[in-house]
């Protein structure tokens, strides 16, 4: 009976174990440190759940193209600064965007990539801005 109860306790503990898996920056492998380099200074203060998620992201880092690796590192700090709710909302938006027809997605990409035209000195309407008129 004792053995049965011990194994039951072990099972419960094993089920809970993954929830308490925090790692310090120094404990990360060189590969993980390379992937998550922008977060080096704040890594130890990140919540366990976020650390675990980022370690999963870092696992895929080596499979990315150099351009994608660069993009990921540039966005890591901004991404880690978001609240869990913001990240969740962003994931939902991204998921929804993935369902948009390819042609429309490409159009959006093209639109975003287009360099913004410099704002004309005189507005298209021809009416000078209020700032310019008040400075006289």
């Amino acid at each position, binding site marked *: *009976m004792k053995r*049965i*109860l011990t*194994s*039951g306790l072990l*099972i*419960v503990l*094993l*089920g809970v174990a*993954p929830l308490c898996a925090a790692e310090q920056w120094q404990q990360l492998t060189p590969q993980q440190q390379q992937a998550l380099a922008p977060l080096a200074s704040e890594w130890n203060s990140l919540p366990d759940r976020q650390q*675990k*998620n980022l370690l*999963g*992201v870092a*696992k*895929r880092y080596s499979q*990315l193209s150099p351009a*994608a*690796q660069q*993009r*990921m590192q540039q*966005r*890591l700090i*901004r*991404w880690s600064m*978001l609240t869990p709710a*913001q*990240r969740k*909302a*962003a*994931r939902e*938006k*991204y*998921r929804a*965007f*993935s369902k948009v027809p390819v042609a429309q997605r490409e159009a*959006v*990409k093209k639109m*975003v*990539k287009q360099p913004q035209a410099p704002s004309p000195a005189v507005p298209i309407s021809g009416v000078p801005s209020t700032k310019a008129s008040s400075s006289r």
Partner: protein
Amino acid sequence: MTTKLDPKKITRLLDQSTRQLDDNVLSALQQSRAQALQRQSAPVQVLGFTERFADSGWAHLPHPRSARQWVTICLLALVLASGANLWWQHYHEQQIQELDVSILTDELPLDLFVD
């Protein structure tokens, strides 16, 4: 090399050796056999489930008879439940991580998806 054992021959040999046993040993053996048979024929009702099982058309299924069996079944259910839970958690985390990698590496800027 191996000799085939005839069941009848074995029975005969066992009968012969039983006859040679000491009376005390023989009666002790008979007693314990009777006890074992008695225990097997009388179902032990634990937690009142045995009768209910029989009444509800579950009689054809083997049902637990002792507290130990109940504990074993509960533990098995616990193992299965925590296994399924762990699997689901892992699957869900994998999905999120894949999505995060896509967001972080997409050609579209991050701000497009962040409020």
